């Protein structure tokens, strides 16, 4: 039988509908899911999350950090991006997790971690342990602060360890700077 031109799997809609009404537009109800950025487990616990969860997620982020932190061959290159005195050489690490045989290199200090709202909303450490073994679990991401003050996390892209900006909280000073020209026309699709 010849290969068919139609997709093998019938298309699905996870939201069930493309009628994006208030719910989708505002992110499901009064409490939109947001992530929280913490510097330490103590700061995390102070926000109301179970301290044990905060510590476990800190360890998870730290382990991710050692595995996938942005890597630099030299101290100067690392400091150029993350600031003076803000990088360490992996050969100095007692924990050799970061040293996967690729030789020694420099990585930035982890300055915090990003906890997802799903974890932040768990009622107890027992619930957290259940959640951790579920497929929807994603560990908290390590956070770095660049020399320019930008908050980034690590990511692996095409085999390279790179830094990725994260959506940080800020303060909006102005809106409606886009969308004006086409309002007069009504719609734009083509």
């Amino acid at each position, binding site marked *: 039988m010849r290969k068919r031109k139609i997709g093998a799997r019938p298309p699905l809609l*996870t939201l069930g509908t493309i009628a994006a009404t208030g719910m*989708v537009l505002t992110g499901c109800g009064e409490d939109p899911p947001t992530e929280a950025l913490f510097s330490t487990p103590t700061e995390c616990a102070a926000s109301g999350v179970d301290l044990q969860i905060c510590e476990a997620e800190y360890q998870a982020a730290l382990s991710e950090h050692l595995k996938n932190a942005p890597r630099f061959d030299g101290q100067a290159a690392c400091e150029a991006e993350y600031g003076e005195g803000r990088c360490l050489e992996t050969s100095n690490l007692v924990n050799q997790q970061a040293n996967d045989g690729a030789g020694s290199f420099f990585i930035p200090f982890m300055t915090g971690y990003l906890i997802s709202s799903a974890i932040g909303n768990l009622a107890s450490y027992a619930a957290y342990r259940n959640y951790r073994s579920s497929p929807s679990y994603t560990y908290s991401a390590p956070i770095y602060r660049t020399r320019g003050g930008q908050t980034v996390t690590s990511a692996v892209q095409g085999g390279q360890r790179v830094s990725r900006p*994260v959506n940080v909280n800020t303060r909006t000073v102005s809106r409606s700077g886009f969308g004006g020209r086409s309002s007069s026309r009504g719609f734009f699709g083509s």
Partner: protein
Amino acid sequence: MQRISLPEREDWREKAEAVGFGFHEMYGEPYWLDDAAFVFTLAEIEEAIEDPSAELHQMCMDVAEDVIRDPAMMTKLAIPEPMQDLVRRSFEDQERHLYGRFDLAYDGTGPAKLLEYNADTPTSIFESAYFQYNWLTDNVERGVLPEDADQFNAIQETLIEAFRKFSNEPIFHFAAYTESDEDRGTAAYLMDCAIQAGHRTELLDMREIGVDDQGRYTDMQDRTIELCFKLYPWEDMLREPFAEHLPHSRTQFVEPPWKAILSNKGLLPLLWERFSGHPNLLPAYFADDPRAGNLKNAVRKPLHSREGENITVIEAGLETEVSDGNYGEEGFIVQELTRLFEKDGKYAVLGTWIVGNTCCGLGMREDRSRITRNLSRFIPHAIIG
């Protein structure tokens, strides 16, 4: 290639409403036709439509490369001078693009001809990818179409694959002009595909995009926008007040700024200049090129027209059809007039979908005029034989 009639599915309106496809009727006219179809042979689809579309996309990328090297060319395409560097950098950095739709003229004979490339804000993707798929499987199931009836439609799975290639670290924002049912539906559909590719998403209106005191774009929760799909034309964004933040913004937009080159009708004369005589191209010139006057049967289009606005059909040197609209101040191109598939006074245009760099599907639209406008109708297709 033929146009056939078939009994409509009795419950298709309920099915449309159930998935939020509310714009199956627009301006009080039916937009989706359930009782008609275009039928193609596999050879027509593969040899006349799919392969040429894939080749056309590659040719467009070659032209884009020429354009980014030549500031005069950018100016010719009415890309504002302060924004040219942004467009150039986005191309040089190979910023990832998502999708586009070629409009082709084809009537079953001879090569398909490129009419234009909707490479920046194409709509009708939901109809093509989702609703058309179900139309085919329903009709096979109820015995109206043969069991081996096929369709050129791997659009949704190709979209999901394409979305997987974007980082899923930041939130994937989706910005659209949400007052338009069609635009909002299109953005919501693509957002659904992104969710299926593992992204966290958020839909917002173009006008809700904000900036913070560092010139970073922000959403309604005052979070920075790092990755943003926008169903909004670059030629407008580049001219609006927030354009001033674009050159320093870290936000990765989808489509990327370099799509301003491909979605521009000025692409057509540039393609003809570089690939003159290519079987899938029509002769085309900028309106101020003396050679434009040699085209006695032609179509004049503004560089930035959407929805078939401000198009003029010229036959034997006379203007025979004109559509009104608000476009044209940035200039015009002239393209040789070509034959469209016609039946009972209705004209059909083929829309081939390019997702990433893959041609993965087809959607047909039909209009009573040769200028396909926003009153055109979407007609499903099948491959039989």
